[in-house]
């Protein structure tokens, strides 16, 4: 697998920043004939949106509303979340179908408000740090139903203030979110629905299998989750990917409908091999169940000291490999 090589590249300092300055991109092509923005005479889009995890986080500010793609412990942009933990960015409103992204951010005290329908590690039903944070009243919660959340994303992506849904009526979602309103159908049926407000974000973070430098993102697993909607519902969107490829490679890697995220909705692209670790990112890698068990059973300070205290994503990946080798 080229994964380790690429990860080492990051850790040895040959990250995308250095690549830009030395004029060599990840595929080894000379980049000196390419402008970094604008267009060339052939009419091809040439805006190179590649950046590093830390550059993405450098564009985030405390107090922002942040959307995070994936679902539960599946295809989460964990490298970007880890970069966020290395920064001072805090006081976030986080919108996500929650998994360990919520756990990490909650344990580190970065969440002011969480908007979600659940937080789970899938194979481990209850997310331990989400749970601890809720039980200590560490952040505010907007608890929505899974479908309400989805239609909120659609509203956000479609510049609508709300979309009507049947879900929520009669449930305590209405009690714990007193700001929710209902609408009455203007047609003969006259039915009453919940008006789910648009979920809009300052920034969205998603992780995909492949992407090109322009920001086109491709998923190769069975489920797109809602990553395209997150990107479209956000003012800025950042795609991390297992592997950065030439645009011409995308259509060869999967069917047309695997081209989930389109560059018009993407601000930055980061190549982060194994960047969804320890969540699943099939077919590139499955969930690291052993490591997830370790995460769920280790006190936060101890876990953070061992795996999250280094200055780069490469330090994390190396610490995981060292732990993995110890177990053999």
């Amino acid at each position, binding site marked *: 697998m080229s994964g380790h090589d690429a990860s080492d590249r990051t850790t040895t300092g040959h990250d995308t920043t250095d690549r830009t300055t030395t004029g060599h991109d990840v595929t080894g092509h000379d980049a000196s004939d390419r402008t970094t923005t604008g267009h060339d005479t052939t009419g091809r889009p040439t805006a190179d949106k590649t950046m590093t995890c830390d550059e993405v986080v450098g564009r985030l500010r405390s107090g922002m509303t942040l959307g995070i793609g994936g679902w539960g412990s599946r295809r989460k942009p964990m490298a970007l979340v880890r970069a966020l933990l290395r920064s001072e960015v805090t006081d976030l409103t986080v919108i996500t179908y929650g998994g360990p992204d919520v756990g990490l951010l909650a344990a580190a005290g970065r969440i002011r408000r969480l908007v979600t*329908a659940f937080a789970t590690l899938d194979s481990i039903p209850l997310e331990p740090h989400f749970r601890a944070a*809720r039980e200590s009243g560490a952040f505010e919660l907007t608890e929505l139903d899974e*479908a309400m959340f989805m239609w909120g994303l659609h509203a956000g992506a479609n510049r609508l203030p709300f979309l009507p849904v049947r879900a929520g009526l009669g449930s305590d979602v209405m009690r714990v979110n007193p700001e929710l309103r209902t609408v009455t159908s203007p047609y003969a049926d006259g039915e009453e629905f919940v008006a789910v407000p648009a979920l809009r974000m300052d920034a969205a973070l998603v992780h995909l299998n492949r992407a090109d430098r322009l920001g086109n993102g491709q998923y190769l697993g069975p489920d797109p*989750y*809602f990553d395209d909607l997150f990107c479209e519902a956000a003012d800025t969107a950042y795609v991390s990917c297992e592997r950065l490829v030439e645009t011409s490679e995308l259509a060869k890697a999967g069917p047309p409908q695997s081209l989930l995220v389109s560059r018009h909705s993407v601000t930055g692209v980061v190549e982060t091999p194994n960047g969804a670790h320890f969540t699943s990112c099939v077919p590139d890698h499955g969930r690291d169940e052993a490591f997830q068990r370790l995460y769920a059973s280790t006190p936060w300070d101890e876990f953070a000291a061992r795996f999250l205290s280094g200055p780069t994503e490469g330090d994390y990946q190396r610490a995981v490999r060292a732990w993995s080798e110890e177990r053999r």
Partner: protein
Amino acid sequence: MSAATAVTRAEYCVIACAEAWRGDGEVLASPMGLIPSLGARLARRTFSPDLLMTDGEAMLVGPDGTTVEGWLPYRRHLAMVTGGRRHVMMGASQIDRYGNQNISCIGDWQRPARQLLGVRGAPVNTLNNPVSYWIPRHSPRVFVERVDMVSGVGYDRAAAAGPSASRFHRIPRVVSNLGVFDFATADRSMRIVSLHPGVTLAQVREATGFPLALTGVGDHAGDGGSSGRGSGEVPVTREPTAAELRLIREELDPRGAREREVPA
């Protein structure tokens, strides 16, 4: 395992769960948890062959569990719920006499004593497609007078929320390790449909935090089909057929995981 081996409590539970999908036709069976999964697969392999099922991820698969016949990622799954062509069997950390269910948290929502999953899709499920429940450990801590956070909507709350809420609302059955229950009463409160063999009425009442209605007590007096075993007062969960038992034991769960979820 010989065919002569006595039917276990877990196997009665599988049968009782399977019965939830009888007559459903061409709808998605969404079982959550091991026993409901065995029940749904059993129903599909026997009396409800038209059911659709997923592989637990995004694929619709055939009865062998591997042949892909369709694609159902979360976005289509959530949209399918509102079309109603689905019958889900969820779990419940708490459930009350009208079928309000809680999987979100225990205690005050503002600062829960125990945070659980969150409401997940329980609100959309209960208002749009039939929702049954599976409760592996029937106790007064689960069968409560009032749930702490209404995730799945019960009959009283659906009615109070108006015609939009009750239009497609239906809770066909609740299956526990002690028996089968439904809401086919005048006030839509929970009643006993059947008890699993070996379970007494006193036992289930003691394990339930609210009064349970009985299935037409007078009608069933002297009913030969329910005599002898169980309470003698209420119907007994039906026996599996020899073919069903073979499927459960040899094909669906040869390693006997069901016996760990519901010990004998």
